[in-house]
Each structure stands twice: as C-alpha cells, then as structure tokens.
C-alpha cells in the first residue's frame, strides 16, 4: 500500500508539529488511511521528536487506532443485550457470509473491516449496524447484506 509522505508531513504541519498534538495527529492519519502505517509513525516520531515507545504505547492503548491495514469501509455490528435478543448474531452471520470475513477481520481487497461493539446507545433501534458512521436500525438479516451493496 503506497503512502504519500508529503500528506503525512502536511498533517503534522497542520498541528505545528506540536508534541501535545500527538494523539490528534495520529487520529488524522488514522482517519485518512484507516490505519497507521509504520512509515507514517516513523515520520511522526521524527518530526515531533517523540520516542517510538511512547507512540506505540498510545496507538496500542486506544481502540481507535489500528496497526494493521483496514478496509475502506468500517462495519460495526452491535452485540449489546438489546440487539442480541433481537437477532444481532444472525445479522452478524449474514454480514460475515456476504463479506467472507469474521469480526475483527479485513478482507483481502481492503473493502470492508468488520467489528462488533457492545452497545451503541440506541437500543430501541436494535439490531443496529453502522457502516462508516451511518446507522442502520432494525435491520433484518436479509437487509444487512443489501446495505453493504451500496458501498464500493
């Protein structure tokens, strides 16, 4: 996967290469690439003059960061109690079948990454799935696969 290092530099410069903006910079890189390539982290370490062990500590601490490539689209399926009793497992299974990946995985084409979450705070809509931040409530298992057809 190629990465534009000048773009990384730009993100760093947007934050004036401030050490105190480390997490914000990492979040920006994560948002753009869907993960944190090592090259980018090396660059951040160098330009902000922060040691790599600190960057690793932070990037492995927060779930928002990924050390491995993620798909272009992030699917989250809620497995919280309310969604669970309304069939979240079947929703998850259909999505797994359609994308051929299990929760926590990313497909080889880097199209989708699939994660489960434990309550999105909108139990009345259950079962809920979220694709790239867009909420789909009351999804029947059959609908779940259809939703994914809208993403390329």
């Amino acid at each position, binding site marked *: 996967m190629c990465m534009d290092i000048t773009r990384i530099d730009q993100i760093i410069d947007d934050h004036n290469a401030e050490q105190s903006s480390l997490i914000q910079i990492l979040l920006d890189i994560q948002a753009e690439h869907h993960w944190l390539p090592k090259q980018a982290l090396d660059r951040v370490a160098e330009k902000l003059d922060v*040691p*790599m*062990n*600190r960057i*690793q*500590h932070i990037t*492995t*601490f927060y779930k928002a960061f990924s050390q491995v490539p993620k798909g272009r689209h992030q699917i989250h399926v809620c497995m919280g109690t309310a969604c669970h009793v309304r069939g979240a497992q079947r929703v998850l299974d259909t999505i797994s079948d359609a994308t051929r990946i299990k929760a926590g995985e990313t497909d080889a084409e880097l199209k989708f990454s699939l994660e489960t979450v434990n309550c999105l705070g909108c139990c009345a809509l259950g079962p809920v799935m979220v694709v790239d931040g867009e909420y789909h409530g009351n999804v029947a298992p059959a609908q779940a696969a259809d939703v994914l057809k809208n993403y390329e």
Partner: protein
Amino acid sequence: MSEFVLQIDGKEVTAREGMTIVEAAKTAGIRIPTLCHHDQLEPYGACRICTVEAEANGRNQLVAACVYPAEKGMVVQTKTEKLAKIRKVLVEQMMAHAPDAPQLLELAEEYGADRDRFDKDPSFCILCGLCVRYCNEVKKKNAIGYIDRGPRREISFIPDVAGKECWDCKECFPLCPTSALQAAYVLTEALATPPEEAAQEAGCAGSCSCSGSCG
C-alpha cells in the same frame, strides 16, 4: 531545604522536604518492602507492596510509601497486621504471573503468601516498569515500552531501537524482578535477526532448513 520531624514505627525521624516516606524511613534504617522503586528513577507507584499506614491531619490512610511525600508530624506504621495482609494478597496476585521470581519468593516467605492462590497467568512480568523507566529516564534510549492496556498490557522492545542500542547495554536486565525482560529481549532479537544472519552466527552453513536454531 527545610527539615522536619515525623514518626515512623514509633521512631522520631528527621526528613527533608521533598522526601518520600520510603526515603525518610531509609535514613532511620527502617526498611519498607519495595518492588517497583529504584533510587535513580522517578517515583512510580505500580506494585503497591510499599503500602503503609500514614496518619496526618487526623486522617489515617493507606498510602504507597515510595510516592507519598513525608510530611511534618506524620505518624507512619510500616508493619501492622493490616499491612501484612494487604502485602500478602499483593504478592499472591503477582505470583500468579511470576511464580518463581526470587524477590516474590522472599516476600511470600515473609508474609506467608500462597503462590498458588490465584489462577496461573504466567506472563512473567509484574509490570513494575523498572525496565521501561530505566531505559527512558537514565539511558534515554526509549528502546522498550508498554503496549496494549488493562489485563493485556505488556512490555515490548522497539526492534529498530533495540537492534542499535541494547546489545552493548542490557543494564535493565538485572533490574527486572522476574525473567520476563530477558525473555522479551531474546524474542525481539530472534524476530529482528534475519534467518541467514542467525544461521551464520550459529556457525552453520545455513543450507539446511533449521534457520540456525541447531547451532
């Protein structure tokens, strides 16, 4: 710097401002057990084995003596039944991770801790942070750090840095109360060394498929 008097285990102890309870006790020859404390490093307070009862301003508290500053007029108890019980459980918990660590075996003896009390979870690291902090603070090489969080937190060498810095240093090894640190290092080394090189180091021709592990 201003000096003041406090009481530790019934003894009058003179301490200087900025001293921790552990340091003040040491000047009076009173030993408080510690695991994650190191004179050259910033106070950290990870293991809690140094917990003492401290009474100041009419309040009796349990505090970590290695981080808690000594205060004027404070009354400290370092060896009570309550503390022995706390330390016993702490040792038992740490022993679930590192059952054979010499320092823990000693403490277990002292406090009657049962190393098999809790389910085994042999990570061999008690996360005292001595290695990480020594590398950061004293050597300033930052070759080792933490990864992940909560029960999954562990120490990890940064291979790029470790490859350059650690071979000639290894000063953190003797600091580790368990054998986790060396294990982590050996692992990093193995992962960071390409098989051909490892084979050469091991002295075999590298023509077999053993990746040098036979040497």
